[in-house]
């Protein structure tokens, strides 16, 4: 197989395999880019975003002043049978911990009031734009379960694929002399406008 054929085939098959991810990142960028529009549209419905599912006494034990809070979040998730969720634990000031547990489809937030030993749990209403932006933002290798790690590996593959599509696209363009002039204009005007944005934005 010649290099040019290998180049075209890898460009094509990688693109077809990753089509769902390309569509995901394109479509999910719409609510990011037009957040005000989606917020106003949702607000007009007058529906509460969060529904309280639990409020009461709960003892998380001593809270470390610094360091990892993940084990505390894991305990709460175990007690509420949400071990399948990805989660993060955040300090919301010296007297409060927030735990945010989610899947692509569902999200639950816990607010733990340290001095009162009180816990509030709330479920978030499903919204398509949250579903899309949640998928878009999901990444990283912090989650030790193998399936989320595989998702993170796929994200790396998408990054690599974009670089390959650019490189193989450039190679294919250069192989077509008839398109070189207008192609050069497109590339250089894109590069120039990007540099101007980076310097002046």
């Amino acid at each position, binding site marked *: 197989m010649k290099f040019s054929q290998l180049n075209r*085939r890898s460009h*094509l*098959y*990688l*693109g*077809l*395999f*990753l*089509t*769902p*991810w*390309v*569509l*995901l*990142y*394109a*479509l999910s*960028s*719409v609510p*990011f*880019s*037009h*957040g*005000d529009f989606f917020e106003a549209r949702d607000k007009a419905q007058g529906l509460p975003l969060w529904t309280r599912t639990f409020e009461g006494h709960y003892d998380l034990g001593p809270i470390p002043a610094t360091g990892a809070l993940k084990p505390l979040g894991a305990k709460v998730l175990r007690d509420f049978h949400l071990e399948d969720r*990805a989660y993060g634990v955040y300090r919301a000031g010296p007297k409060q911990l927030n735990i945010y547990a989610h*899947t*692509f489809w569902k999200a639950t937030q816990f607010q733990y009031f340290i001095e009162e030993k009180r816990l509030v749990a709330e479920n978030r209403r499903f919204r398509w734009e949250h579903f899309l932006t949640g998928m878009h933002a*999901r*990444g*990283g*290798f*912090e989650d030790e379960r193998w*399936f*989320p790690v595989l*998702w*993170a590996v*796929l*994200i*790396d593959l*998408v*990054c*690599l694929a*974009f*670089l390959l599509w*650019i490189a193989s696209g450039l190679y294919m363009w250069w192989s077509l002399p008839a398109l070189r002039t207008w192609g050069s204009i497109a590339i250089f005007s894109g590069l120039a*406008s*990007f540099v101007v*944005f*980076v*310097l*002046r*934005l």
Partner: protein
Amino acid sequence: MYAVSTFVMNHRDLFQGPPPSPPPQFELERELVYPGEFPVGATASQIALQVLAMLQLDGTHTVARPFSPEKVVINRLHPITPRRITYRAAEKRVTVERMVFAGAGFLERLHRRRGFQHPYLGEDLWAATVDLTIVALLLLALTGLWMWWELRVTRAWGAVSLVSGCALFALFLGSM
């Protein structure tokens, strides 16, 4: 930019150390006494606009919460050199701090910049290019599918690639 910045964000531990990520570092750029006056009852946003104009740094910014006319902290957004500008009303003192440059932060700022919520033309133009990128991605995916279907010789292996990608994606949708 989106490919490289996504890779960096996907490997935060590698580029920024284990969580929690340290706050960005700032270095003092200049400090001065503000010579002007503000209208009576000026809001934090009005003060921010006036201070930025005086510093010749007018542009996309946010005002840190909680809003207070006594101490206004302005975050002047910029891909390379974001600045934190603090105005203390009691001393009429303005402190300008520049964020220490870090490659990972630079890429992440570019990745996250979007939307039409700021009243600046440059910001709107950037947001328009983000929308153009979205349209281009959709077109690349759809025209790619069409071009693949036109090539009979690659239909079988192309179908295997497409179906296996869709199946894996569906598995993620159902399991995460």
